[in-house]
């Protein structure tokens, strides 16, 4: 139980929360008349059993990693970016736009250019709340949430007005901008796996390096912990608040590019949010806001979501049950305070 405190808590709390989440999920299955052992076996098989599901899991992980990094990065600087969803949407659109507009480029130029455009679009979208926060102390939670709606409708309007193709969507992007790979599809039994996961891993490395190894990261973390001491040290607090939002938005925009250049290759008129941006909050929370943790948490969430499909077809357990499990995991991470408290109780009983 000592593991729940100190430096190990970043690992033990998530692991314990996952176990408890699965346990509660199993109990709900029992109550609802399903066999949890069969269901979980199907879930497990649905993640690992063959190369197709493995490929799908990694594909599912890819945007989650980047949106999780976006939330975690802002959080490290003391900001709560709930606007990842909106930044992701504008990033998606920007990547698709670049993918459509440029022809005859080498993929080595076209793909980075499209991802860059997505990052810049996300960054610009996040700049607004960052600027309002830095200059006028407007709370970023409010503005980022509102910017999500603005993004959703602006993106839809742009697609409808300028980019519309049959089927309420844009045209397919040019092959030179696509992250899709026939090689990856062949090895994974024609899953939709694409090269985006490389981009996501590079993103995680960038975040880690930026935060811990650069003077910029030093400043960002310093401002996140203590504005006054940062000001005393001559660090420009306002600039760093904006910078933090902008970098966070760039990660979010890149997450959108994973969908636009990888999974789909186009963008549809959205009836609702994708949810990937909001899942990023959960991923960051479970991953303790560290780059490596975000990758692991994305693997878990991606896996659960893909495994749920198999669970439904083999054990007839609705996919929604996995949503419940995910929600329970988040619940337990968020209430790690409660877990501490219980462990303290147990400790004492044990000792007396």
């Amino acid at each position, binding site marked *: 139980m000592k593991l729940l405190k*100190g430096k190990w808590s970043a690992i033990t709390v998530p692991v314990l929360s996952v176990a408890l989440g699965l346990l509660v999920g199993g109990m709900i299955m029992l109550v609802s008349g399903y066999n949890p052992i069969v269901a979980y076996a199907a879930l497990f098989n649905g993640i690992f059993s063959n190369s197709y599901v493995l490929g799908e899991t990694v594909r599912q992980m890819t945007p989650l990693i980047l949106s999780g990094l976006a939330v975690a990065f802002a959080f490290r600087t003391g900001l709560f970016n709930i606007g990842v969803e909106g930044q992701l949407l504008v990033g998606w659109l920007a990547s698709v736009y670049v993918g459509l507009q440029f022809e005859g480029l080498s993929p080595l130029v076209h793909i980075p250019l499209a991802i860059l455009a997505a990052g810049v679009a996300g960054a610009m979208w996040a700049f607004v709340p960052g600027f309002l926060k830095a200059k006028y102390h407007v709370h970023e939670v409010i503005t980022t949430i509102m910017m999500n709606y603005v993004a959703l409708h602006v993106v839809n309007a742009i697609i409808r007005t300028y980019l519309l193709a049959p089927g309420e969507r844009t045209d397919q992007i040019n092959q030179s901008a696509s992250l899709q790979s026939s090689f990856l599809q062949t090895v994974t039994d024609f899953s939709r796996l694409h090269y985006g996961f490389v981009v996501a891993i590079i993103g995680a490395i960038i975040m880690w390096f930026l935060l*811990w*190894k*650069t*003077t*910029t*990261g*030093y400043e960002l*973390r*310093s401002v996140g*912990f*203590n504005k*006054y*001491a*940062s*000001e*005393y*040290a*001559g*660090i420009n607090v306002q600039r760093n608040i904006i910078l933090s939002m902008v970098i966070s938005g760039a990660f979010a925009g890149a997450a959108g590019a994973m969908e636009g250049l990888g999974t789909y290759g186009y963008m549809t008129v959205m009836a609702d949010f994708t949810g990937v941006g909001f899942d990023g909050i959960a991923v960051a929370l479970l991953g303790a806001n560290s780059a490596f943790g975000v990758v692991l948490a994305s693997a878990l969430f991606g896996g659960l979501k893909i495994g749920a499909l198999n669970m439904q077809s083999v054990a007839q357990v609705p996919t929604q049950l996995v949503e419940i499990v995910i929600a329970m995991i988040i619940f337990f991470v968020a209430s790690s305070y409660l877990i501490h408290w219980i462990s303290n109780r147990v400790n*004492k009983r044990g*000792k*007396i």
Partner: protein
Amino acid sequence: MEYVIEMRNIRKEFPGIVANDNITLQLQKGEIHALLGENGAGKSTLMNVLFGLYQPEQGEIHVRGQKVNITDPNIANELGIGMVHQHFMLVEKFTVTENIILGNEPTTKGQVNLKTAAKEVESISKQYGLSVDPNAKIEDISVGMQQRVEILKTLYRGADILIFDEPTAVLTPQEIKELIAIMKKLIAEGKSIILITHKLKEIMEVSDRCTVIRRGVGIGTVDVANTNEDELASMMVGREVNFSIQKKPSEPTTDTLEIKNLVVEDARKVPAVNGMDLSVRAGEIVGIAGVDGNGQSELIEAITGLRKSKSGSVMLNGKDVTNWKPRRVTEGGIGHIPQDRHKHGLVLDFSIGENMVLQTYYKRPFSRNGILSIPTIMEKAKSLIKEYDVRTPSESTPARALSGGNQQKAIIAREIDRSPNLLIAAQPTRGLDVGAIEFIHSKLVEERDKGKAVLLISFELEEIMNVSDRIAVIYEGKIVAIVKPEETTEQELGLLMAGANRKKAGETS
């Protein structure tokens, strides 16, 4: 002899550090027992063990002769142990009574019975001569009164063993006198008190016995009647302590800092510094004496660039630095030991190493082209930790985990190491023990002897008198007198600080 509390051979370890090693504390009924030790010696840890916040690795606690196992503060409360915390735990918007009953509310038919509670609070307050108004709101009463509310809280819960954690740190001299009277009254009514402090004067004045701990080890218990301040100090620090600072007469040369007609507004747009003239020369320590709130903070903030001045000028070595940004000021040669070390001085969640480069992280050798050189930073931190005797398990320990004195030493190490032309030290020894104070004072004098200018701001006259070469008295945002310590007295300074005109005006430079 039976003790109300007996802590035998307590040992408490934290990762990398033994906070308490074989400490024994015996509290007799009806005595005031002082617990003396430097910052970080392990006083608070010991009391947290007694209060059930920490579990000791070894040792036993006996309360009134019974062996007990205190696993949480509720058990301590049930045993009649109450703690008056240094940082008050009160709800500002609540009344005195509401705060006192919080968590223990008397109810009739599910409703909180405030009237009965208020009566009871009042009667306890009368019994111990606390004169607290049970219906006053916390935000409306003085710090001294708030402390009495904390005392009342423990009494209301039936405590007869009271622990006072550095109770005088936040009080004015008058309030300290009153607190001492209250403590004596408590004893007369049959309570027993443990007084945690590092102020020797107070121990001599109120306590019956004193237990000294040094670096986590129990040194011994002495009868206060048979000892003196010098002996206590050397027990605490482990060597002889110099109360008066050894220093040669100053040899000031040219003006390092020159302030002319400076006006600085506070947050409410009222001029807090109002037409101030002041100069500090290389090779001297100028002490600013004054009651808190007469423009000291605004003056420092204006010099260091944390606050814009409205008019007037600040010159550093003949260069106009008025309203420069903090980084430019720092690079221009000003070091600043800030008044509030937690707010401005340190990023508490950063490691000590990261804190040591707070103003230099962007320069070589600590970084190149925007990439931090972490080994270089940690090497630097290691050498500063060694040179300035900062007691920390390692350079990668978070600053938060250090005691106040060691945090302050870390700041001082960082600021002096940059070897600034002007060192501003704002209350550099607040809340520190004699050993640390002696160390910091000697460092200030050392800087002066190197030909640097030092500006010392302190609310403690003793410190101003001891350390300064010249004393500038600040009153309502102006320097009203400049005196030499050897030509004045604390009484005279006190009068000047209160706005009285100097009789011998014009006599000193």
